[in-house]
């Protein structure tokens, strides 16, 4: 485990919390909705004082973690964290691209390669660092599983108590991989939206740092680092398109913010990528709103194997719609069978085993490719946000296993056909 060395920021970036609806501003404190209009608050930066050359040098000389981007994160000084997160592999997926009709530049950002095997390590690193800065002793969250893993692990590493609230029907792998860290694990009889509503009410009663409620403006900033890393790993280039999963829409909108911040300050040249979102048909409020031309999302009751995306009442849905429409992109939806096929396709062509959310993303990429929307020369970054070992049931029954006696004759009786895609 690497401990990042503390480093003082050398560049000035004034910050505040700003309402995305009415523009009201607030100081950087534990606050997540605008008092005037209930709109979401977002960290606002003034990069006017940023020395771009110095910022780039600092990034490249920085730690192999998200803290290399501290000039673009809401802290006065670079925080420390025990579980170093980020700088996950960007894989040039040539075989996957070939399978999809000759796409030459498909890249897989494999964010399963984080300490608790999902992109949630990024957002939790930021939320816990901010919670400590604001003096909180207890960390809490409402989770569909990956966040539970990350909160329990990072709280343990930081020596903080934690409470993790999950729907009772979560995948066993995600429950086991949370409880092991010694958190207070609370199963709530209901779906994620019920858990989230309960935690929103609890956040008014308990003086805890709920990472995705009162810490949400900071937490969500962590997802921007997935844009920064892709730019760096592409050799300081912006991709033409991104494909990313949508649950609440937070990751999707923060990727957009991340790419645009670096374009705006001049750290990289180019234009904003085209954004494609990915949802499961069994939980498709944002995809449905996109198809129907609505600017709001009618909530749904989720019924999908992609439980990490099973948010029927997506908080950032309206903004995700703006991003997809504003960039000329789309929001796709795929069935459970397509999700299983997506997991298999990624595994067969790249050696990356993703969870169901990644299956949603790959299946959506395939839809775009099948429709001919992607030019063969375009650079496409596909965000794989979690690990296949956490949703093993999705792989069950998708392949054949041979059982033989330990003899050469028995083996020769079977001549397995190649399984490559």
């Amino acid at each position, binding site marked *: 485990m690497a401990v990042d060395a503390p480093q003082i920021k050398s560049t000035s970036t004034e910050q505040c919390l700003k309402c995305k609806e009415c523009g009201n501003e607030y100081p950087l404190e534990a606050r997540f*909705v605008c008092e005037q209009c*209930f*709109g979401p608050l977002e960290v606002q930066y003034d990069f006017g004082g940023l020395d771009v050359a110095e910022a780039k040098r600092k990034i490249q000389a920085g730690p192999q973690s998200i803290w290399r981007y501290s000039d673009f994160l809401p802290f006065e000084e670079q925080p420390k964290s025990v579980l170093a997160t980020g700088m996950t592999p960007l894989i040039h997926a040539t075989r996957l691209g070939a399978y999809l009709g000759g796409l030459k530049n498909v890249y897989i950002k494999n964010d399963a390669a984080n300490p608790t095997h999902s992109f949630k390590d990024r957002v939790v690193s930021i939320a816990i660092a901010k919670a400590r800065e604001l003096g909180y002793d207890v960390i809490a969250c409402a989770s569909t599983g990956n966040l539970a893993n990350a909160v329990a692990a990072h709280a343990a590493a930081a020596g903080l108590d934690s409470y993790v609230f999950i729907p009772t029907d979560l995948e066993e792998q995600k429950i086991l991989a949370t409880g092991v860290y010694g958190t207070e694990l609370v199963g709530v009889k209901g779906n994620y939206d019920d858990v989230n509503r309960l935690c929103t009410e609890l*956040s008014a009663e308990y003086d805890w740092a709920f990472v995705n*409620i009162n810490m*949400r403006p900071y937490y969500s900033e962590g997802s921007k680092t997935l844009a920064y890393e892709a730019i760096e790993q592409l050799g300081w280039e912006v991709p033409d398109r991104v494909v990313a999963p949508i649950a*609440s829409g937070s990751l999707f909108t923060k990727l957009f913010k991340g790419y645009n911040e670096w374009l705006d300050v001049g750290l990289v040249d180019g234009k904003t990528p085209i954004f494609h979102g990915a949802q499961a048909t069994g939980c498709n409020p944002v995809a449905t709103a996109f198809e129907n031309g609505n600017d709001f999302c009618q909530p749904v009751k989720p019924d999908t194997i992609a439980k990490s995306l099973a948010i029927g009442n*997506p*908080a950032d849905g309206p903004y995700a719609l703006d991003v997809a429409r504003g960039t000329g992109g789309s929001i796709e939806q795929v069935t459970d069978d397509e999700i299983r096929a997506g997991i298999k396709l990624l595994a067969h062509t790249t050696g990356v085993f993703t969870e169901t959310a990644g299956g949603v993303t790959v299946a959506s990429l395939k839809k775009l490719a099948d429709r001919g929307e992607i030019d063969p020369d375009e650079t496409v970054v596909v965000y794989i946000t979690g690990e296949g070992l956490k949703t093993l049931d999705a792989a069950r029954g998708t392949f054949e296993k041979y059982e033989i006696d330990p003899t050469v004759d028995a083996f020769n009786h079977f001549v397995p056909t190649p399984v490559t895609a």
Partner: protein
Amino acid sequence: MAVTVKIPAQLRPVVDNQATVSVNASGTVSEILDALYGEFPDLKDRISENGELRRFVNVYVADEDIRFGDGLETAVADGSEVTILPAVAGGC
């Protein structure tokens, strides 16, 4: 007839710092809210705009999001609980 309305922390300053308010009214969510606005006029602009709820305000009747019912026309039974909450929470 009385209905209990649960008030989120952000709105308590405009309802005399109460966490719950008992409203003597009957009918729909809309009628309950109108009765509440009558008692606490500052509440109205905070959660509604042009007669509709602001888009980041969620309202639940007996723990069910009113968007699964009839929206502001959802019926509120005597003795039941109406919960107002900010929509911007949770997720990934």
